[in-house]
């Protein structure tokens, strides 16, 4: 996508924390006025635009918004801006927060007005020091500005540093001052969220799209997408490609285009082996998926998932078992330990994988691994354990021979 066609990463908008300049280069605060004037209209626009949750779930945004808007404030209503970004290979939210913090804040304010929230919490991964600094400055500028809608309070809260803290109910626990253990659902955050108040939680990238939809209309947004996708998406491209980085492309751009046109192709001209899609549920894509559009529905139809839009490219010559073992180790470290199946399950999976990867695994180890994958999914409060199994299943499906050949 040409730089000037980009929405979120348009060069004019990458100005850092400078509110005055932001108002000149963006819509000058009109989206806020529109949201104050007619919140229901804004929600309707989001619905027609088919904006999805870009933090990995792909859940339709309007459903959450409508649910929260329908709840009465008790006495507060929260909007949590989820910037806990910690998935392997994902580095898009930090870029938005660093370079266009006002875009995110403006989106959050519109969302807050649209659902009637009065408390906006920016919940950010504490390791992202530059994003935190930029956002802190930007929030101060809003507080000093007359444009901040009355009754809305902005807070910046560094997260716990735990991967699991990005799960929406875990984030709420942390905001309440507790360890970020995910809660059981239902009740859903829309009914019982932070301190029992109705709470809307959206990803940074999701909210950044909101002002543009409000200003340019739902049709304009839909037209940015390709195939079944709507709008644009930030893809975090990494791994064995020539130009890794964040690319804003139409939602539904084929994988081939992302890797070969934008990413400059594979390093040393090696053949493509697989792609790990980053997010709460990793899956593997293979060269057979090269022409699939990278959007939620097209990938789901092929048993994959878009996740956060992270694409970690693996070239021929890279061991899949080692990579999977590393991911699972990451998840085993990240398990909060609350649900026994997840606590011991991820640890066991990781140990078995390490054995196989380091050449000490037996046929029994592989069989145990496969049995666990059949047994474990769906047994935790959050999606972590199922995500791990999804990744393993997907790697078995495509690369079972590699597991076998790594056995002792």
């Amino acid at each position, binding site marked *: 996508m040409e730089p000037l066609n980009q929405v979120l990463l348009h060069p004019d908008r990458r100005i850092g924390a400078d509110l005055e300049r932001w108002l000149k280069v963006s819509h000058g605060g009109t989206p806020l006025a529109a949201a104050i004037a007619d919140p229901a209209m804004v929600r309707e626009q989001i619905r027609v635009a088919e904006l999805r949750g870009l933090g990995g779930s792909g859940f339709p945004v309007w459903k959450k918004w409508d649910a929260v808007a329908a709840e009465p404030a008790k006495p507060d209503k929260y909007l949590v801006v989820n910037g806990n970004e910690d998935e392997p290979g994902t580095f898009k939210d930090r870029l938005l927060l660093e370079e266009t913090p006002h875009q995110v804040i403006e989106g959050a304010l519109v969302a807050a007005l649209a659902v009637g929230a009065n408390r906006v919490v920016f919940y950010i991964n504490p390791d992202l020091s530059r994003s935190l600094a930029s956002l802190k400055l930007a929030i101060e500028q809003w507080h000093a500005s007359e444009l901040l809608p009355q009754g809305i309070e902005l807070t910046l809260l560094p997260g716990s540093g735990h991967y699991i803290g990005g799960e929406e109910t875990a984030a709420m626990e942390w905001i309440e001052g507790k360890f970020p253990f995910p809660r059981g659902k239902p009740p859903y955050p829309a009914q019982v969220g932070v301190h029992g108040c109705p709470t809307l939680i959206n990803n940074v990238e999701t909210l950044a799209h909101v002002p543009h939809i409000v200003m340019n209309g739902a049709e304009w947004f839909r037209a940015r997408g390709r195939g079944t996708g709507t709008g644009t998406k930030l893809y975090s491209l990494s791994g064995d490609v020539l*130009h890794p980085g964040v690319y804003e492309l139409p939602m539904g751009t084929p994988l081939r285009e992302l890797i070969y046109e934008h990413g400059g192709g594979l*390093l040393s001209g090696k053949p493509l082996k697989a792609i790990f899609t980053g997010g709460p549920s990793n899956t593997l894509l293979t060269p057979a998926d090269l022409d699939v559009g990278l959007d939620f529905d097209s990938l789901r139809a092929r048993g994959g998932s878009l996740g956060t839009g992270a694409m970690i490219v693996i070239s021929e010559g*890279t*061991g899949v078992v*080692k990579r999977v073992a590393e991911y699972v180790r990451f998840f085993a470290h990240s398990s909060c330990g609350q649900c026994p199946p997840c606590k011991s399950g991820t640890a066991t999976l990781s140990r078995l994988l390490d054995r196989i*990867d*380091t050449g000490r695994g037996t046929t029994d180890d592989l069989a145990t691994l496969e049995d666990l994958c059949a047994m474990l999914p769906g047994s935790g409060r959050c999606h972590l354990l199922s995500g791990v199994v999804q990744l393993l299943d997907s790697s078995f499906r495509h690369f079972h021979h*590699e597991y076998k050949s*790594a056995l002792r």
Partner: protein
Amino acid sequence: MTSAIEAIPLAEARARYRPDTELTPLPPTIDPDTLLAAFHPDHLRGSVVKLAIGANVGDSCQRELADLLQAEAFIDEADLAGTPVTDCDVLIIGGGGAGCAAALAAAERGASVILATKLRLGDSNTVMAEGGIQAAIEPEDSLQRHVQDTLRGGHHAGDPALVAAMVEDGPDVIRWLIRQGMQFEQTAGGNLHTRKAGGLSAARIVHCRDYTGLEMMRVLREAVIQHRAIEVWEQSPAVELLSNERGQKCVGAVLSSLADGRLRIVRTRSVIMATGGVGRLHLNGFPTSNHLGATGDGLVLAYRIGAKLRDLDSFQYHPTGLVYPPHLSGKLVTEGVRAAGALLLNADGRRFVDELAPRDVVSAAILREVREGRGIRSPRLDKERYGVWLDTPRLERAQPGLLERQFPKLLARTRVAGIDPRVDPLLVHPTLHYQNGGVVIDVDGATTVPGLYAVGEVSGGIHGRNRIMGNALLEIIGFGRRAGVAAIGDRDRGPKKVTLEHVNRVRRALTLAGMPMTRKAPQVLPPYAGGAWNR
């Protein structure tokens, strides 16, 4: 260096030589900078190129070295599948003096240490160091003078903070070595015996005959082998470092085995690089005094993971490498011999330089004599070699018995070749001896890459553009111990993930710069000893 054709054949020069002739006075000295610019190998036309990728883009670098720094890695992700992983607190790469000192310092503080060495523990340039170790311990000497001598010797290109750190450590390093059991030469009264050397303003070289490094290695080796917390892996060259998932922190290394070619991964909190120098790259075609493993692997690996290097166009050519007999070509005659009073004579039997001027100046003067036709030609099987006389017989006449007493190693080594330095002058020529620059470090030996430390010859900044005698042994122990202590200070929980992301970064840079990816590095062994690493 073979461009000088005019020279006097060895036999004729030997017949003409008399140890008792009256010497003509030294010709007036010419400006050292002019001499260096005209004759020092660092200034040879075409020997230096600009680096095109990496942390030192645009910097000058010796051509042979640049080829390796900008080479592709041997290891690919595929090679790591099924590789056994070992965890430890500190991995030390290199089994010379610096590596041992670092290992002991870390282990004494409770860390679990793996010391991996390419050949055997102690196969290093440390054991080749003959002259001694500097430390300002004499009453008329001072730390200040030691600092000044070091900076001046290095043409004021050294980092004063690093020099100060090294010099401060001096007296304590000697004390520590004595506690480890090292023997030093003593005066009749039982004090440490010191001597002067080129570029020193006071007697400051503490030594053990002419095998100080060998004696040092003897005690370090014993201490390392005996320490429970140190595991020594011999014949295990490092072929690649490992980085975290962003390629920004060093979290381990891939070691190969010279015995069976198998790979092993060591996962660790910090890596101390103590791999020594580059003599075996034979820059500009020079012979070298270095041991077989000195192929610059440390520089290659550190550069690839993103560490900044410095002074890559500055190498030390020791003035007195043996030319004859051929099998000892390049081997060192310690500067101690000149410090004791031996003179350098050209084919005409004339002195041509102050023998105790800094090493680079003396080397440049010898190369001038050879190039201008006043050298002596030695027959050799492959190609002809040239040199000048190191006048040991005259020294023997002036101080009978001195050679035998103070330089037993030299006598033993030449005796087997039928040469007696007490009677025969030695034919010498500059030999590639030391890498002045190297990996940029701070006073803890930390490089610009988190988790990666560098000590000893592989590091740079202390010696500026020329090292003076005795500072190398001081540096390896002083900075080795500093790095050993600092490396266990990082209190993170250890690496989550070990990757080759930094290798990918280099591949990207090579592709974008349009450079070939056919050459691979590190070399591990010189081509004539098995060539580039190959499993």
